[in-house]
Structure formats: structure tokens, C-alpha cells
């Protein structure tokens, strides 16, 4: 898996905007979306977001990729509203879902994962008073990002070992050794963290 995640490298205005600003705009849009209840308002909002894709020079293919899994769900919702007698409501609801998903995906695709992590750590700063340590949050995110390829690697090892012994695919015979290996890895990782003085 790429460490870049869903980030699409680029140097446009949207790429250079601060992660916190983009998150703020997204949240504001999410709240404001409740106020839209005419088809043309939704169409304008959708147009603005698609304009954002043009500004950020994100290929249409990437936008489609984020919305495609929703087609059936959104289709069913539209059908439900049409059957209960409101074409406009069907358009408003499904249009808003598409608009917000596309907007959020745009923020994700124009913001580096590292910048997003920094933004999350920044957002946690006021939580210090209720006992949340922002640096610990940053450490956990870094550990989590690193853990994904580690466990995927362990999964490949377990699968190879299974194949070597000629076992057929059984979820239990796969998951148990994978989890046990992961837990052992976590123990070693925990020791490394202790050695680095993470424990108080």
C-alpha cells in the first residue's frame, strides 16, 4: 500500500491550502447542506465541488472511483423517495450525498496524510485538559500507519505457510495464526517503545 494513501500530488491552490482550513470548509459545508431543499441549490453546490476538482486538476476518474461504490445505495434511496411521490426530494437527498462525498474526497486527495495527521494532533490540543495527550495521539497515528503494511506482510507469510502445508482455505486456520503473530509483533513493538522511554 502506498504511504501517500489517497493523496494526489499537485501544486494547485487547493493543494497548498492549510489542512485545517480545508477541514473547516468541509465541516461548514456539511452543516450548511441541511439548509438546501431545492433541486437548483443542490445543482449549484455540486457544480461548485466539481469546479474544485477542475481547480485541483484531479482526474475525473479519481472522483468517480470514490462515488462508484455508492451507486446502488443512492439509487435505492432515490427510488424510495420517487415512490413516496417526490422527485425533487429524491434529487436533493441523493445530490447532497454525492456532493458531500465528493467534497470530502477532494479534501483528502489534495492533503498529504502527514499534514492531516498534524491537523488531527492540532485539533487534539484543546483536549489536553480532559487528559488527551496530543503527542501520544500523533505517535499512535504513526504506529497505526506503520502497522498496516506490517500486518499485510504477516498475512502473506501465514498464507504462504498454509500453502506450503497444503491446507485449504479455512478462515479459522488463517485468522488465528495471523492474530497470534500480530500480537507477538505487538509485544516486540511494545518492548521497543519501552526502550525508547514511551512509558512514563
Amino acid at each position, binding site marked *: 500500500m502506498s504511504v501517500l494513501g489517497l493523496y494526489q500530488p499537485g501544486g494547485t491552490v487547493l493543494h497548498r491550502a492549510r489542512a485545517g482550513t480545508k477541514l473547516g470548509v468541509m465541516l461548514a459545508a456539511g452543516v450548511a447542506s441541511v439548509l438546501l431543499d431545492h433541486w437548483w441549490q443542490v445543482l449549484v453546490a455540486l457544480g461548485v465541488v466539481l469546479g474544485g476538482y477542475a481547480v485541483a486538476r484531479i482526474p475525473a476518474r479519481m472522483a468517480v472511483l470514490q462515488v462508484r461504490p455508492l451507486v446502488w445505495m443512492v439509487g435505492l434511496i432515490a427510488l424510495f423517495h420517487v415512490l413516496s411521490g417526490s422527485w425533487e426530494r429524491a434529487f436533493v437527498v441523493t445530490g447532497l450525498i454525492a456532493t458531500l462525498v465528493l467534497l470530502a474526497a477532494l479534501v483528502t486527495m489534495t492533503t498529504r*496524510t502527514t499534514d492531516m495527521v498534524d491537523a488531527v494532533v492540532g485539533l487534539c490540543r484543546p483536549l489536553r485538559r480532559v487528559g488527551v495527550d496530543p503527542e501520544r495521539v500523533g505517535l499512535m497515528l504513526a504506529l497505526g500507519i*506503520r*502497522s498496516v503494511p506490517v500486518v*499485510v506482510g504477516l498475512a502473506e507469510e501465514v498464507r504462504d505457510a498454509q500453502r506450503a502445508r497444503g491446507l485449504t482455505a479455512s478462515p479459522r486456520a488463517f485468522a*488465528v495464526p495471523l492474530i497470534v503473530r*500480530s500480537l507477538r509483533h505487538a509485544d516486540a513493538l511494545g518492548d521497543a517503545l519501552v526502550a525508547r522511554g514511551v512509558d512514563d
Partner: protein
Amino acid sequence: MRSISSAPRTPARDAALVAIFAGFVAALGIVPAFTPPGFTVPITTQSLGVMLAGAVLGARRGFLSLTLFLALVAVGLPLLAGGRGGLGAFMTPSVGFLVAWPVAAWIVGWITERGGPSYKLHWGVVANVVGGIVVLYAAGIVGIAAVAGISVGAAAVSTWIFLPGDAVKAVLAAVIARGVHSAYPGLVRGRRRERETSAV
């Protein structure tokens, strides 16, 4: 090996377990998911990971692990089934299921911890059903109703097709958790002993 697993649990070890298990849930997302026609939520093995987090790590660490997983998704990693991820994932009608994952893992873990020092299969199934199905569906249904603008009843009807699959997952997760606990003792039980001795 025994000495490793019965070593005292420290904050650093817990942090490592939380991070590695977030990686495990991500690895489950690579197992292909599919959205058959007429289904509102893709069928994934990741909800198996939600039950396993609680059943293997217990309430607190299971909760933290899924919270970390969602944070990794939010900062832009494509860790959800089907390679989805980023902030857009939190704007879809299935957002209720997603944000309830940490709570579901917590409840599975809380019930599991009350099942006595050794992991019992039937008790584990009960824990997985209550946390991984009852609580998760309640949140998911409310989410669908809110995002799609339909009644809670209609939203509930749209989810019933997943019940058979999730019932199978609840049993499977308990079978896997029993295997893990017997191969790697001291996970949930260790915490209990620690708590008892620290109380003395």
C-alpha cells in the same frame, strides 16, 4: 513464549496492541468486498475485525484500536473494504455503522471480559451478537435514516439482508477468538488479574 504473554501489560504494550490491531482490521479490508444489487451496504469482513478487536483485546483496547483505525481512514488512507477511505467515507449513508465500530468493539469486549477467566464459546457468541450486531445495527439504521432522509423503519428494512451473514461472522469471530486466547493466554485474563492485584 509464556513469559512474553504473561508479562505485565504496560501503556507502551497496550499502545502497540492497539496499533497492530488497527492494522489487522485494515488487512481484513483487502479481502475483497462486494456490493450485490439491492444491497445498501457492501459485504465486508471488516465487521469481523470489529468483533475480534473486542473479543481478543477487551473493551478499552478494542475501542481504542477501532478509533485509531477510523482516524487512519479519516487522514486519507484507503483502508476500508474496496480501497475506499478518506473523509468521504464519513459522508455516506453507512456512516452510522462506521462511527459505531469503536463502541461495538467496546461492548463486545466488556461482555467478553465478564465471561470469566477462560474464553467460552457460547458467551463469546453472545458478546459478538450484542455488540457487533444489535448495537452496530441500531447506530447504522439511525445513520441511514438521517442521511437518506427516510424513516427509521424503512432504513431498518434495508439492513435485514445482512443479518444472516453477520450471524455467521459472530460465530466465526468467537471460534477465532477462542483459538487466539488458547494460543496466546493472558490477554483479557491478564488485565483482570492486574486489576485485582492492584486493588489489593
